């Protein structure tokens, strides 16, 4: 019962106009390939949720896919401002719903847990609480200080990139794991993209590493290098030069359009994109091996 689909089929089948989409990954494992495919297929009126919108949502907003963003830090990580999302918000062209990182992740954790809400301790910084009716305050029934609560976030679809998955979607991921697990369990449908599709025996050799199991996965797509300019730990490096370059590109609507024409609409899929990046970039992003010490599960 393989769940393997081409990424284009997966996006066509599982992402609908108007959906709330959570393209997961905190700096690491950001599913750019899926984001580009969503742009190519011209999806509309999406609500784009992510702790850090990052360049992927800048590009999707530029391409007109989004009506709203849900976020907790709207920057170009390590560079500065996220120009396109920011400008759309400043101009009133984009709805937004904002939390702290912890608030955002707590919403996902509540969603993943099947709970209506989860509490957080007070922070004393009440301005966002005043601005966002989703941030409420309730009494501690055990007599302590009031706590802050946020409602569950259950996206229509989560897109989660992993290093290796089997054909059913059982996934090993490592390095910065951010909110990958929470997004997968919170969402109604889960698209896994993977650097490698491996035999089930590889997954079963280390079950404690399996953060997302087939039980919640809708489809698995084999998409090597899916994260560029983000990265996959152990597979390729983050392309910091691209993050710097985007700061310039995104200053101009023309340059942004040209970028989308060249690198999203101008390529068929991620493989073409990666080939187009060229040998020098491939070499620059290469990373030497550094292997984990294996562990012994025992043959019982």
């Amino acid at each position, binding site marked *: 019962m393989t769940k393997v689909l081409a990424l284009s089929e997966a996006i066509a089948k599982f992402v609908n106009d108007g959906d709330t989409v959570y393209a997961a990954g905190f700096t690491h494992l950001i599913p750019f390939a899926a984001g580009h495919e969503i742009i190519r297929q011209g999806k509309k009126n999406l609500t784009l949720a992510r702790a850090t919108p990052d360049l992927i949502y800048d590009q999707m907003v530029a391409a007109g896919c989004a009506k709203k963003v849900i976020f907790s*830090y709207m920057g170009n990580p390590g560079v500065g401002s996220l120009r396109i999302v920011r400008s759309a918000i400043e101009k009133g062209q984009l709805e937004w719903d904002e939390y702290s990182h912890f608030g955002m992740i707590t919403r*996902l954790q509540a969603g993943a847990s099947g709970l209506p809400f989860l509490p957080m301790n007070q*922070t004393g910084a009440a301005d966002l609480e005043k601005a966002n009716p989703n941030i409420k305050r309730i009494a501690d029934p055990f007599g302590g200080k009031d706590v802050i609560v946020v409602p569950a976030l259950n996206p229509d679809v989560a897109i989660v990139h992993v290093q290796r998955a089997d054909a059913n979607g059982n996934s090993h991921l490592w390095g910065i794991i951010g909110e990958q697990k*929470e997004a997968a369990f919170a969402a109604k449908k889960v698209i896994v993209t993977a650097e490698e599709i491996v035999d089930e025996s590889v997954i079963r050799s280390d079950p404690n590493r399996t953060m997302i199991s087939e039980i919640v996965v809708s489809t698995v797509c084999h998409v090597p290098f899916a994260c560029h300019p983000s990265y996959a730990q152990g597979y390729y490096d983050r392309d910091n030069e691209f993050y710097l370059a985007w700061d310039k590109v995104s200053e101009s609507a023309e340059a942004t359009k040209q970028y989308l024409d060249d690198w999203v609409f101008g390529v068929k899929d991620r493989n073409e994109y990666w080939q187009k990046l060229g040998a020098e970039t491939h070499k620059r992003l290469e990373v030497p091996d550094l292997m984990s010490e294996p562990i012994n599960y025992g043959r019982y």
Partner: protein
Amino acid sequence: MSEIKYSSAELMIINAARLLRDGDVVFVGVGQPNLACNLAKRTHAPNLVMIYEAGVIGAEPARLPLSIGDPTLVSGSLSVVSMYDIFTNYLQRGNVDVGFMGGAQIDKYGNINATVIGGYDSPKVRLPGSGGSQEIAAWANRCYIMTPHQKRRFPEKVEFMTSAGFIGGRGDREKAGLRGGGMLAVVTDIGIMEPDESGEMMLTQLHPGKTSEEARANTGWDLKSASSVGTTDPVTESELRILRDELDPTGIYLKGAS
């Protein structure tokens, strides 16, 4: 003996590093805070433990990290956990000693604005927002900020309180039941401000050659001075050598002032 030259960024980083104690668990950002922590670790605080909101604990980056999620933070670190775990089990639980803060504005009571200039609903300048800083400010035992001493960065009251310092004074912070000690030092390129008994930031130290007049002229509130304002120890060649030769050899974070 020739005079030692350094940028204002180097001056702030070196003074921030000195605030760290051996064994501290520090919630670090990239850029200058990362350099301050690594400098402290290579000088007086070898047992400093660096943790990142991305979920990395005990990072020993082999190269200068360029984003909060740089893979060099992961390889060879002690532990990598989910964001939910880092915010709950570490930060909210009280396992973090020091938080380094950033922000566009910091006010008289050490409150930070990193969200918006102009009204929230129709922003004039939309800033990145809290990220993890709302919770770090509330729950780390000690919070520090490094920022150039400029009037526009130091308004009497922030337009939007992204992260709490002492709110409207220490009593407010206690009333909210926050576990951390709040904003305990603002390191600028002129000197260091620390809270008085009411939680108001006052000038407590000046860097060599700087004056309290300069500090007052570049602060948006009526900046008081401690009864005796100290002078920070001069920057040493050894500190500069570690920063420049080992930590940021291409000068990515050392050159500017912001």
